[in-house]
């Protein structure tokens, strides 16, 4: 890893000012960025550690009943705090990587990175979450813009993520055991005004909503209705040594049906 200067701001404003100057990048839990820097796929003059900013850590509930998770909150904290109030989200957080990854990795880092196989983007998109930054609020439908691409501007910091809590939801992860990321995973969320289905690990455009399943499930909330749908098209799906596009497309359907069956 090339050397850099590590900066440790205590407030969001300080961090934003440091990120605005020269060649600087934010460090969340480092569980993606540090391996990337070791592989020399990323380098910078200054790394701005967000871990000392208390204001972006921790969880609460807002006046609309949405759960609000600070951008610097670890996966382990989300797994622990939401076991009762949003079990599908807690279960997702509790299955990311392994315990040591969950101690350090943060929701803000996961969303900002938008790995096409990451877990949190599926939860944010299916729950219609709002991603709050130091400058604005971004709806999940606008936030994710393709593999490793988001609406974030250079130096913009995710300070909070607000999740409306669905009536029922589940996250079904078909694990790729070597990486512990999903091969394909599906988050379904049933709200009073309709169902949202978000898929990760499958498309080379990153997380996406499977609209045919959303319509069918909004009319009839049952795993059987998913069985009657055609799987999404295999073109545009990730094809690699772990599974080809057609296999991933098939898994989308299977994981969606399982998620509906298991939703709480």
């Amino acid at each position, binding site marked *: *890893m*090339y*050397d*850099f*200067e*590590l900066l*440790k701001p205590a407030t969001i404003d300080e961090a934003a000012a440091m990120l605005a100057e020269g060649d600087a990048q934010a*460090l969340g839990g*480092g*569980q993606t960025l*540090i*391996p990337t*820097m*070791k*592989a020399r796929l990323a380098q910078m003059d200054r*790394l701005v*550690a967000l*871990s000392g900013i208390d204001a972006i850590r921790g969880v609460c509930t807002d006046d609309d009943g949405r759960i609000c998770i600070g951008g610097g909150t670890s996966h*382990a904290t989300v797994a622990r705090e939401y076991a009762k109030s949003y079990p599908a989200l807690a279960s997702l957080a509790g299955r990311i*990587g*392994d*315990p*040591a*990854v969950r*101690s*350090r990795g943060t929701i803000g880092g996961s969303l900002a990175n938008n790995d096409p196989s990451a877990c949190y983007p599926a939860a944010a998109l299916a729950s219609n979450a709002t991603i709050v930054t130091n400058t604005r609020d971004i709806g999940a439908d606008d936030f994710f813009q393709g593999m490793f691409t988001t609406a974030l501007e250079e130096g913009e910091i995710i300070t909070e993520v607000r999740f409306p809590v669905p009536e029922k939801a589940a996250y079904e992860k078909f694990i790729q055991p070597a990486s*512990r990321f999903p091969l394909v995973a599906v988050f379904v969320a049933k709200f009073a005004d309709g169902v949202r289905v978000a898929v990760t690990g499958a498309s080379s455009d990153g997380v996406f909503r499977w609209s045919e399943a959303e319509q069918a499930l909004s009319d009839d909330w049952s795993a059987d209705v998913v069985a009657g749908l055609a799987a999404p098209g295999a073109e545009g799906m990730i094809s690699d040594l772990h599974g080809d596009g057609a296999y991933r497309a098939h898994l989308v359907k299977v994981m969606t049906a399982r998620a509906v069956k298991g939703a709480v």
Partner: protein
Amino acid sequence: MGKVTMTVNGKSRTAEAEGRTLLVEWLREGLRLTGTHVGCDTSQCGACVVHVDGAPVKACTVLAQELDGAEVRTIEGMADADGSLGTIQQAFQDYHGLQCGFCTPGMVMSAASLLEENPKPSEAEVRHYLEGNICRCTGYHNIVKAVMAASGQEVAPVAAE
């Protein structure tokens, strides 16, 4: 370069660190605490797991300067006060939970975190919790037995799923 101070196994320790110095380098090269191993250096294997402020972390995937002031526990801090093996370490010996021993420091630290969170885990919970610790030798069964024994529970003769 800057000086970084942490409480390591109960003692205040100081050593130099660059921006890029990893916790594991700071421990091994700065403090000569070489019990913490580097298996992969790519955040996959768990040989480098130590506790930071009570939580398990991969010491190869955290920067030393970020942890100035932190409380760290390594495998060197797992023995009993008189220097004899701690409960988990003794169980690894009794149940042949190690062969070459390379993964063992990380295994023991992860197992200790598990038993702090969940003092009487089921066998499935042990396997799930140790997912991030890779062992090339044992085939895991004896590690699982050792952790079950360390938790004071009965050890099944043949480990199941």
